């Protein structure tokens, strides 16, 4: 089970301090991600097939929509991490390349003195657990420092084809639209596959090949985004939020939220601040 020690929402994204005592399975989300080791047991992230140690010397940079997972020793002391979720707009306003506008250059970030300084300042704000005028600035500069470093060491990646591949199949495009329009309804994957003219296995294979994640993960991401937005911007109860998203009970929604966001929705609402 994971526990959130602090969650801050700001203009460019959100930052959290998580206490993690279990691995996290492969998932992906719209936001970019930076994960820094803060203490406890060391771990390892797998980012699009590349392994990145999470320790005092290195952190992980994950581009929007890039599948990733977290592994750590079973049992023993928990791991503590500062985790940043960076909105796509940050990348659009700061990217230098028309070909890779929504990408970090490489998944491994070296903990240089400059990166350490910014992460330290950000962690202080998070540990204070009070709204702070400094949060947005610290989040921006931490991300910028890592972003620049990631491109300095980037090998020239032939991402051109992957951008092109992402939109090349009309059935996947159609399924993205259907999921966007119906993610609050219960739409079985078999039905969705049929609706776009594919068998379930073919649909899963094609979707993963083009989007880098399964349709289930994509749908979960849409629902988790909606849930976080509701928790942060409405006074709806957790039960109401779950029911609006098509869950039969608060328990099933809480299970879903915990496995996708890392902590239960009640905890999220309790510790999260808007800056």
């Amino acid at each position, binding site marked *: 089970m994971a526990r959130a020690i602090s969650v801050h929402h700001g203009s460019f994204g959100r930052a959290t301090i998580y206490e993690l005592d279990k691995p996290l399975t492969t998932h992906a989300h*719209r936001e970019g991600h930076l994960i820094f080791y803060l203490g406890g047991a060391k771990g390892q992230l797998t980012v699009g097939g590349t392994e990145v140690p999470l320790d005092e010397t290195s952190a992980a940079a994950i581009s*929007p929509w890039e599948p990733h997972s977290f592994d750590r020793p079973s049992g023993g002391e928990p791991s503590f991490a500062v985790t940043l979720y960076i*909105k*796509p*707009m940050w*990348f*659009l*306003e*700061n*990217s*230098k*390349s*028309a*070909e890779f*506008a*929504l990408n970090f250059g490489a998944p491994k970030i070296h903990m240089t003195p400059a990166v350490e300084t910014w992460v330290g300042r950000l962690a202080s704000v998070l540990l204070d657990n009070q709204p702070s005028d400094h949060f947005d600035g610290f989040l921006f500069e931490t991300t910028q420092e890592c972003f620049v470093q990631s491109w300095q060491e980037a090998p020239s990646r032939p991402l*051109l084809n992957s*951008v*092109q591949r*992402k*939109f090349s199949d*009309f059935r996947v*495009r*159609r399924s*993205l*639209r259907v*999921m*966007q*329009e119906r993610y609050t309804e219960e739409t079985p994957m078999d039905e969705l596959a049929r609706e776009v003219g594919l068998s379930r296995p073919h649909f899963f294979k094609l979707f993963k090949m083009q989007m880098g994640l399964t349709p289930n993960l994509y749908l979960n991401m*849409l629902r988790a*985004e*909606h849930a976080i*937005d509701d928790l942060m911007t409405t006074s709806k109860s957790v039960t109401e939020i779950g029911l609006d998203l098509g869950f039969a009970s608060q328990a099933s929604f809480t299970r879903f939220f915990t496995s996708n966001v890392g902590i239960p929705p009640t905890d999220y609402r309790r510790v999260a601040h808007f800056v």
Partner: protein
Amino acid sequence: MTLITYLMRVHFADGVLEEALRSEMERHGKRRPLIISSKNQLDGPNAERLFSSFPIRTRPETFVDTPAQATEAAALDIAQHYADKNCDHLIALGSTAVIDLAKAARLAISFDEPLAALSREEGGSTRIDASLPGLFAVPDISGFASAVSDYSRVRLKSGDQILLFSKFLRPSVTICDPTLALGTAPAVCASAVSGIIGRGVDAYLSRNYNPPADGLALDGVSRITSHLARIVEDDSLATRRETMAGALNSALSLQKGLCVIHAICQAIASVPETPIDVNAVARLIMPGLVDFYGDATNGKTEALKRHMRIDRKTPLADGLAEMMQGFPLPDRLSDMGLTGGDLTTAAQRAARDRAITTGPRPIGQRDIEEILAAVH
């Protein structure tokens, strides 16, 4: 930066449509868009991408009865639809005509009077202000002349054509995604490229003083001509990106003001009732127009030739004609159904357009008629 903010917010990157549109809607707090596009576009792959990109709780409406040229009647229909459905901003997906229409619709939504009262011809430009509803433009390869400009050409119910002009008509955000241009038909691409070259060349040769716009015009034509051998047929992302970059820069050079080529092409388009491709007209008259300018360009033709990789000894007019020869577009104005009488009317109208005065050499009605007659 892939976000360009010289005049306005322009996102330019491969595959940027979804995240840019979503992020901008969130930034502006909008959830009730009215999407203006042709039926073909909305049935096509780009629309699927558009609809999958909205923020949560977005309830989009659509308007697809878009005419080949922006009309007051369609703008009024959109305004009614906008009010009936309680929309909070516009998204225009597609060509210059679609984005021009969306601009006219912004005025129809904000003002209770006929569009003609807001036209430049009636001195209405100064009354257009920041109160217009937001417009997010997503141009296809032939949408740039409107996607980053201050202008909109609209045909009234009476059949007359007006020019709407104000910096507040610029879209709130323009999203340029080269992947949207993949699969563009060669004829559509050839038309767009002709427009890009025509705008860039005439903007650069214009007497108006605007050094940044000169630089943009030169870069626009240079990007296009460096890929010209394959630009129409090659559907690769690299070529489409370069074409869109050239289109963007050429359109941004309109900050020098509308030019002679615009005055003549739009005058021709205003005459017949059937739609005319103004870019195809530009392709035919550009060489004659440049030839007419002759030595009045103060050496600027040399710079153009260098950027367009035209041999020093070849006259610019010949270089341009050769460059666009073989495009899958009509080779004579008569092939577009235009009569000699149409051309006389067009020349009269063009000679009255203020943009006609921007060329390096004064040009009158008779000069225009001669240029048109040569390619009729």
